[in-house]
């Protein structure tokens, strides 16, 4: 029996690139686009593509969109779920490789890392590289998971992880929350190298350093004061 693989793409105002991103994935996966109340033409851009289109009525944030996608995939009977960014910065070829790692290593979650290969590392803009190194230490201290990368949105997980992980962080702090839940639920995880393509578009759309501080405060408050 073949695995039911669901690729979850959270999107907010990605109308310019979303079509291209989805088409780059081919036809072998179930694609769930979670439109987080975009105000651009995201909905129209994907109207004729063979995907599941799920739309939030109000903008909730990337964490909430991922959780909506995961709930949907679980209901549909997904065996494997992939988190994939809408802006086209992830490499579709990594999906099969990560699924292979998931199966052969008998692990629950495979986390993408930009810090395992020299060529991936050099592709990261210098300021971002510095911020990620700081975030890695913060993540390690908060979650007890000492990974080589932080806040990498490319992940693959099996059904057991899909059932256990329940994101409450609606906004960007979900990346740390996932790690916390991986640890709390005693899920097996492994890192695998991934290449991120930093286009001008993805850099403009991506997080800024002020966002990193916001995330840190969110994570801290929700860990200790929620």
């Amino acid at each position, binding site marked *: 029996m073949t695995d039911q693989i669901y690729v979850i793409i959270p999107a907010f105002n990605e109308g310019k690139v979303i079509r291209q991103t989805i088409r780059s994935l081919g036809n072998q996966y179930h694609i769930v686009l979670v439109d987080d109340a975009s105000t651009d033409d995201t909905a129209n851009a994907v109207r004729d593509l063979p*995907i599941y289109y799920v739309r939030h009525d109000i903008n909730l944030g990337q964490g909430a969109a991922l959780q909506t996608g995961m709930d949907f995939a679980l209901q549909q009977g997904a065996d494997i779920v992939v988190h994939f960014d809408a802006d086209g910065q992830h490499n579709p070829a990594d999906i099969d490789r990560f699924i292979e790692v998931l199966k052969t290593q008998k692990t629950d979650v495979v986390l993408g890392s930009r810090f395992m290969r020299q060529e991936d590392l050099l592709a990261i803009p210098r300021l971002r590289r510095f911020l990620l190194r700081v975030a890695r230490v913060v993540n390690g201290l908060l979650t007890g998971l000492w990974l080589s990368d932080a806040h990498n949105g490319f992940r693959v997980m099996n059904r057991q992880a899909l059932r256990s992980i329940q994101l409450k962080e609606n906004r960007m702090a979900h990346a740390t929350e996932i790690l916390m839940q991986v640890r709390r639920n005693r899920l097996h995880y492994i890192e695998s190298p991934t290449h991120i393509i930093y286009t001008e578009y993805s850099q403009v759309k991506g997080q800024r350093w002020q966002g990193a501080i916001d995330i840190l405060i969110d994570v801290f408050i929700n860990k200790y004061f929620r």
Partner: protein
Amino acid sequence: MQADIQLHFTPIQLLLSLLLMVVAVASLRLFRNRLLYRLFFVAIVLTGILFVTVPELPYYIANRLGVGRGVDLVFYLLFTGFLLLIAVLYRRLLQHDIILTQIIRQNAIKNCRNNHARKGRENVH
């Protein structure tokens, strides 16, 4: 230390007491089915009226507590109450956020557009 407590009503004391009583009635109406909130507000209003009508009382309590002036005591209490209020309201806001997220999520999944069904916009369910 013996405080000289006397009951006397000036116009401002009467006005403030009346206002506080209005607040008490309003809070009783506002917090329906929330006995604790009602009791808490009534207690605060009664204390307020007591402090307004017997201004020596906060002075006396402040002195006993080592605060100094009665007005300082009232200020500290108000400040602490204000912070507590923010914390309670923020917690409530978070709860509403969670509920809102659940509703939006359920709605989104229910109305999922399945583009695999070639003929137009059919729902998955």
